[in-house]
């Protein structure tokens, strides 16, 4: 900067005046280009938010949202849902005993059965969930306590799980498979559903346990390690089960396509919930035929193999039965939101129309006339 302050040539005012008239060569004219870009004259759309311009938008949104909202609301209301809490907090509840004298290591499973009745038949496929409350699956220490490469079948990771899995990384000098807090705390209650026929017999309702996880999770993200033999237990040789588990990972299911890391109960559990109260898909009750509803009206018994302790953190366990619609599970809020926003927009549209009549055009024309 200083140097330029005495670059010699241009300093004299005299010389700068000189170049104008004499030369026919105006090669070095400093005239800026007359382009739309440089002159800030690019063609442009100049929308202005006035009552006039936004009015139609308001009416359209109003007219569009209210029917959508009603549709969503009705759909949501048509979904049948039944929820039952089987934690066993009350003395009177059937699972009270199980919930009281629980320990992880107890070899003898504690069973309890809960009866309930459905007032309405559940048509089409019914989805069975377990729900937990006050359960912080979204705690940071918990969320990161997993090893995705191990779950993806990486043999190195199988034998040497990630540090993130601490303190559920090694047990007795053996690597844990699957490692980490999430896997360790796998939900291990068994729920069975019986239909109590009016004639007194109990029929076990068939619960489908596959197809509850994301396709990509089951087929890409989670993979069993590939070892020498076809036998899963051989592949998992040299690893141990998570501390809280009663079985090894290769004993989760008899079906080889639902065993090991690709067990769908495990996969569902591994997708950590966003909020402390959550439900997870447990089983699917498929519709048998057109004639009968999937779950007819009547009395049912839920047989719980009570393994999972929640009382220590004031948690709750629930079982939920629900049908679904095209928009998913029961959620009236979406419909309500649409109806509310739609009505507000419509109402504001009317207000704006009034304003537009009263002020809008005047302000627009005032300056034209000035």
């Amino acid at each position: 900067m200083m140097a330029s302050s005495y670059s010699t040539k241009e300093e004299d005012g005299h010389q700068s005046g000189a170049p104008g008239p004499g030369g026919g060569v105006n090669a070095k004219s400093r005239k800026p280009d007359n382009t739309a870009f440089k002159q800030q004259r690019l063609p442009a759309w100049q929308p202005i938010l006035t009552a006039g311009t936004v009015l139609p938008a308001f009416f359209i949104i109003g007219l569009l949202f209210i029917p959508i909202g009603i549709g969503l609301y009705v759909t949501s209301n048509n979904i049948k849902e039944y929820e039952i809490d089987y934690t066993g907090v009350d003395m009177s509840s059937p699972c009270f005993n199980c919930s009281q004298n629980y320990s992880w290591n107890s070899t003898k499973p504690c069973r309890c059965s809960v009866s309930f009745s459905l007032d309405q038949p559940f048509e089409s496929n019914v989805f069975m969930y377990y729900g937990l409350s006050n359960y912080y699956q979204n705690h940071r220490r918990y969320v990161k306590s997993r090893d995705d490469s191990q779950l993806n079948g990486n043999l190195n990771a199988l034998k040497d799980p990630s540090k993130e899995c601490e303190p559920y990384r090694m047990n007795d000098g053996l690597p844990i498979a699957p490692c980490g807090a999430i896997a360790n705390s796998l939900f291990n209650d068994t729920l069975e559903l019986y239909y109590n026929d009016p004639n007194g017999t109990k029929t076990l309702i068939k619960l489908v346990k596959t197809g509850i996880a994301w396709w990509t999770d089951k087929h890409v993200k989670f993979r069993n390690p590939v070892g020498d033999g076809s036998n899963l237990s051989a592949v998992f040789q040299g690893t141990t089960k998570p501390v809280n588990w009663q079985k090894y990972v290769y004993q989760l299911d008899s079906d080889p396509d639902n065993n090991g890391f690709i067990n769908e109960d495990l996969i569902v559990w591994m997708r950590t919930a966003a909020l402390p109260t959550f439900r997870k898909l447990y089983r699917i009750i498929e519709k048998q035929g057109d004639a009968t509803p999937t779950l007819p009206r009547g009395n049912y018994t839920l047989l719980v193999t009570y393994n999972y302790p929640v009382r220590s953190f004031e948690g709750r366990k629930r079982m939920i039965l629900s049908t679904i619609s095209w928009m998913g599970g029961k959620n009236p809020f979406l419909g309500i939101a649409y109806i509310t926003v739609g009505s507000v927009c419509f109402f504001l549209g009317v207000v704006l129309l009034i304003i537009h009549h009263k002020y809008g055009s005047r302000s627009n024309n005032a300056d034209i006339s000035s």
Partner: protein
Amino acid sequence: MLRWIRQQLGFDPPHQSDTRTVYIANRFPQHGHYTPQKFADNRIISSKYTIWNFVPKNLFEQFRRIANFYFLIIFLVQLMIDTPTSPVTSGLPLFFVITVTAIKQGYEDWLRHKADNEVNGAPVFVVRSGSLVQTRSKNIRVGDIVRVAKDETFPADLVLLSSERDEGTCHITTASLDGETNLKTHFAVPETAVSQTVSKLEALQAVVECQQPEPDLYRFIGRITVSQQGEEIVRPLGPENLLLRGARLKNTKEIFGVAVYTGMESKMALNYKCKSQKRSAVEKSMNTFLIIYLGILLFEAILSTILKYAWQSEPKWDEPFYNRKTEQERNSSQILKFISDFLAFLVLYNFIIPISLYVTVEMQKFLGSFFIGWDLDLYHIESDQKAQVNTSDLNEELGQVEYVFTDKTGTLTENEMHFRECSINGVKFQEINGKLVPEGMTDDAPDGCMPLLSTEEELFLKAVSLCHTVQINYEEPDCVCDSFYQANGVSLQMEYYASSPDEKALVEAMKRMGVAFTGNNGEIMEIKTFGKSERFKLLHVLEFDADRRRMSVILQTPTGEKVLFTKGAESSIFPHAKSGEVDKTRLHVDEFALKGLRTLVVACRRFSAAEYEEVDRRLHEARTALQQREERLAEVFSFIEKDLELLGATGVEDKLQEKVQETIEALRLAGIKVWVLTGDKHETAVSVSLSCGHFHRTMNILELVQQKSDSECAEQLRQLARRIREDHVIQHGLVVDGASLSLALRQHERLFMDVCRSCSAVLCCRMAPLQKAKVVRLIKTCPEKPITLAVGDGANDVSMIQEANVGIGIMGKEGRQAVRNSDYAIARFKFLAKLLLVHGHFYYIRIATLVQYFFYKNVCFITPQFLYQFFCLFSQQTLYDSVYLTLYNICFTSLPVLVYSLFEQLVHPHVLQNKPALYRDISKNSLLSFRTFLYWTLLGFCHAFVFFFGSYILMGEDTSLMGNGQILRANRQLMFGNWTFGTLVFTVMVITVTLKLALETHFWTWMNHFVTWGSIAFYFIFSLFYGGIIWPFLHTQDMYFVFVQLLSSGSAWFAIIIIVITCLFPDVIKKVFYRHLRPTSTQKSQPIEAYPGTSCMDSACCFSSRKDWREWLGQLVERVMIRYGPGRVTRWWRDSDPFCSNDQRILTHSPVEATRC
């Protein structure tokens, strides 16, 4: 020993002595005690970096910035402790920001390197080993004898040894150093003055001893010891012997000098200060906002930490069976854990401080400033000058100006002097067609007839054409030999060069009138009086100085008479006038001044031989005096310039630039107060002020002039204040002169300020350059801290330009000093209107929205994260994936706002220019006021709440959003996890934040469309890609297929739509309501554009569907029009247009606007 080490390490300067000894031509004594001294070489270094130190130094500079340092700390914290996000999330944006800034600064430094090389490589001539050698400027060493030719600048500080003149004098101008354009005479010591050739210089044995370099331009103490025939002659050296680097040799063919201070040790380099960094008001409020956000950040982090510990006090939350701590975690100390928790929250929320804000603002300023240079409306065809931006930091400040201080000469006027009138011996003459015509007579004298001049008239003409320091330049390149003999053929090729345009105008006018000055060569001045050549011997020149305000020459006429001619300001001549028509001339001078002419009074004095003897002797004594030369000279001058015989006075017109009146009027309508600061005399200044519309005829003009004493001045001020209070209907204009001003400022600053602020126009005349700066500072620092702008063209305006918040240089005739020190330079004053009203307005709106939007989008970004902590036990779990955290500010939301801030035009530029009052809408930093800031921040918080809780309700407790269906074919109801939840919030956020900017955008070029929709599209494409692959190098695969699963759910789409609309609609409503119920004048001028549909017509992006709306609307408008009728429309406008009614008086007083309004 110790000292030696310290010297080597650079603690002590290598030369400890107070003086430096320079051996001329570096001929060191062979015998005796010579200790070599080390001097800097003559290299000028203005660049900051070299290739080697660029990286470390630049990084150091950048991290001195608070924001960058803050992010560096965050980054380091992330590296050190276990934090929720990986260091990459803040490291990558920081790297990006640092790199972009480094590239910009590197480029700028490269330009400086180029300029340095040009200067350092300039060819100079040095006497080495007996001959003249051409070398580069940087090779000059202390002790070298340098030859400088006419009109060259001195390459180093030189002690003059000899010049082509026998007496060893030379003339220089120091315009580029201190702005004084007059010629100064410098002297050589007689012993060296004789060494005029290289061979003689070679034989010269001399040593200069002088003080160490210091920045004072006017101080130099030294002595020279010349060895002649074995004896040593010691002579003192003073500033009059020193030729400063940067000054220019004038009027002298060549000189030889010895370099004493070189390179960075020269006085000019020492005087070079880093231009003080001007910070714009926007930047200041930006920093305030940053601090507020830092407060919010700390508050959130502390709150979270405390709540975390509140929760953790119960072990069932702290460590439930499913989520045990590791041994290490359990055993670490509580305090350490507490600190690391706090830091982790800090890291988690740190994105609330917008990291890319600074870099985006910088890029916006840098790129945006090109538009000023590109603007055709700011291009001046005649001089081929376009507007020039020297600092892009102040673009938006152009939209905030409240006071404009303008120089008069050269800024309001052309600085092209034309001789108009003169008064000779009490008779007034006008110049008509190159002839002097007495007043009242028309130009009826027959052409070709030689006008007969009385002796007084002829003497006057001669005096004017002789009493000056004008140089002549001939077109012929080889006329250096002797201009004298070619003088016969001169007539047309001859061109006058003068330091002051007045002198030039006068000499040119005299030539037209028949008394042509045809040349001088040192001692002889030749004039041609009606073809008859006369030679005057120039005996002495009594140079112009600002104290005397006059200059004189002493000549020997062809008849041998010795005459003194003097000319100067009337105040400096009349008191010394003894004879002549003093009273009549005084009257005429005042008349000239009233017409806006610049006046000079001419007088002469004839010496008798005895008188001249004494004059000559005293002059010589004073000139050669070694002590107190200045004082003695002044004394002698006043002795000589007395008993004058008044000859007459001249009136020179300085034409107003075009459109000055309109521009000033426009600025005033824009709410800008215009002050004119000029060195001219009172009457001239007032008349120019009137003619350029600065003062109106209807204005009540108050005067604070010629105050002699403090108390008098105070009394006058109080009186003025009272007058203003009494009649507040009339506008007031204030005239102050320099002397009164300095009195007023000394003690009664507040009173003076009060008076000034209630005046709509202020004119300060007889101002010294420093006083101008003082006035600017006074206004700038008053309690309201208004934004000031100074316009000027000359070196005398530099201080004012540098002092003001924004300095504008006019590329005029008085050199480039002002331009170089300015922030922006324009060719004409009239361009100021567009620069402020259009460019300033645009830049301000752009940057203000940019800043607010940045804070808004980061609040939106991080608040859901904060809210999420309430649902995850304050475990610092992130809501978004790290990649999203990293890219949010860099990729997903950066471009739309940058493009917006480059192209936004709230109103059409023509409207802005035609309605200057719109400028008031943005005055006082209104778009960055605390209220608007609060609005944006609260909006951000509200939106964040809607994002978070909207998603919360809609996803509920994982009531799955996935359908069974016919529509989506996946006959399954699947579960979403926390990452899906975060992605939903993030998706809604990116869309909303982008659309929010779209709502703010009023000017949709194809680029806006491209980046707005492109950003959203990019987000979707990126997410699909990112979630579609198991990334081998990533630690976890949390995001695998999350986005696809989210989008394949119908409810998610419904949720996204409803949340986005819920967020944006209140905002739309607010905008519409405000527009209709409390419209700003800017908004009122917008529909003019929109309605006639012109803008849509020439727009490629016009939507055909809009046509229907417009038809429909058009009908509505028509109906309403009919109902209310035009009368009511006008009334409404009057009532609700606050400034227009306030300024009715302005409107009626102003001839321009009154018709338009």
